[in-house]
């Protein structure tokens, strides 16, 4: 990569796979369960988290030398909360139906462990550019899992992708439904998101033995 040094590029690529916030660090699971029944909701969620995390990381990083250490967690919370409120308002103004679908989960980005974790562990100790890359990397790692889970849940649960009926019409019995295929309603329930994430973790560790912890 010409644009990024090797070390900087790692900030983006690491959380995508070998240090993925969801599958390796098991953070941000609750929203991954809740909003992955539909692909478009998870894409919006991923973008929202990316905005909050990248911006927040930059702001925290710029302020890292002036933030009083006694109240640094409060400062981080205020910055995360402010960014989340901005995202919430923008969604309400420009994507109202999606914001209804995401309901409380936009507000709950504040409590997404990935956000506070990166603020505390990375942005407070690194410069703004690297913090920005770290934010993009981690939220992309979070987003990619969300999208993978949502892809399977929407496809197998509703037979649609982004709302398009890719498998045919389940009522008129066209496409694969003509052969007796049925949607699996289980996929729309939260436990199946956990199982899907479990399968992703399994596949990932099977491919990369180094990720398995030895006791």
């Amino acid at each position, binding site marked *: 990569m010409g644009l990024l040094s090797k070390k900087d590029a790692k900030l983006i690529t690491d959380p995508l796979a070998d240090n993925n916030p969801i599958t390796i660090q098991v953070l941000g699971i609750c929203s991954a369960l*809740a909003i992955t029944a539909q692909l478009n909701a998870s894409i919006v969620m991923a973008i929202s988290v990316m905005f909050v995390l990248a911006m927040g990381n930059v702001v925290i990083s710029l302020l890292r*030398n*002036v*933030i*009083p*250490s*006694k*109240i640094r967690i*409060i*400062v981080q919370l*205020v*910055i995360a909360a*402010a960014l989340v*409120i*901005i995202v919430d*308002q*923008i969604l*309400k*103004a*420009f994507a*109202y139906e999606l914001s*209804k679908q995401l*309901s*409380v*989960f936009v507000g709950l980005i504040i409590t997404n462990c990935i956000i506070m974790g990166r603020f505390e562990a990375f942005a407070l100790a690194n410069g703004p550019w690297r913090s920005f890359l770290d934010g993009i990397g981690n939220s992309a790692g979070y987003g990619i899992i969300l999208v993978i889970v949502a892809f399977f849940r929407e496809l197998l649960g509703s037979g649609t992708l982004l709302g398009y009926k890719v498998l045919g019409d*389940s*009522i008129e019995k066209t496409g694969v439904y003509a052969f007796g295929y049925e949607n699996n309603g289980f996929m729309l329930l*939260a436990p199946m998101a956990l199982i899907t994430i479990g399968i992703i973790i399994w596949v990932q560790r099977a491919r990369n033995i180094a990720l398995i912890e030895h006791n």
Partner: protein
Amino acid sequence: MAKNTDSNVYTVLFASGMVLIVGALLAFVASSLKEKITENKRIEKQQNILYALGINENDETSVEFVSKNIVGAEFSKYITKQLVITGTEAVEDANAYLIDIKKEAEEAKNPNYKRRLPLFVGEKDGVTLYIVPVRGKGLWDAIWGYVALDNQLVVQGVYFDHQGETPGLGTNIKERFFMDDFKGEHILDGDTFKGISTSKGNADPKNLDKIDFEVDAIAGATITGDGLSAMLKKDLKMYVPYLKTLNQ
């Protein structure tokens, strides 16, 4: 020279400064987007009212409103009259649906205030339905909805929504399996108003008995359900005197 970021004075100053800046920023964002958000809410209200009337794009299990682009036209097509009721008098008002129910309920605490009750008259397949807006409290926050009644005061359709009920539990009040149960339920026992309650163990899980003033409650959403029952009792009751005059 490194600043002493540990001193109390600095901490307090930093906190105050931060609050001021963040507060100003959020106020700016909120006020500049306010118009768009209000417009979205207005469209949603029209969609909700039409939904209760039975004008929607539902398939087997989904809850789909008429699309944003046509909702205005559909609304003026199906909603034939909008009334504002004060006491037993009803006055037509083409913007009755914009009345803020929450505000009216608050004003009504003053005994001298004459509460304005909006009522929407819609017509679908030749049947005239009266759509009553309701609003109450769920477990965490406000819940509200629209109830479509025919002139015998039998429910023909409902729509419920909420501000922030528990996902997977209280949020089920806006799912089909719950809302569809209300269709055909009576709210009057002869001449007395009964309302509709959510109930557990009512020995009628298929909801075949439509004159029992009960629908099956949602498991794990007791408080939301109780709030919904109370909301229906309290708000529908205010309309009963007027609605009863329709049959005479």
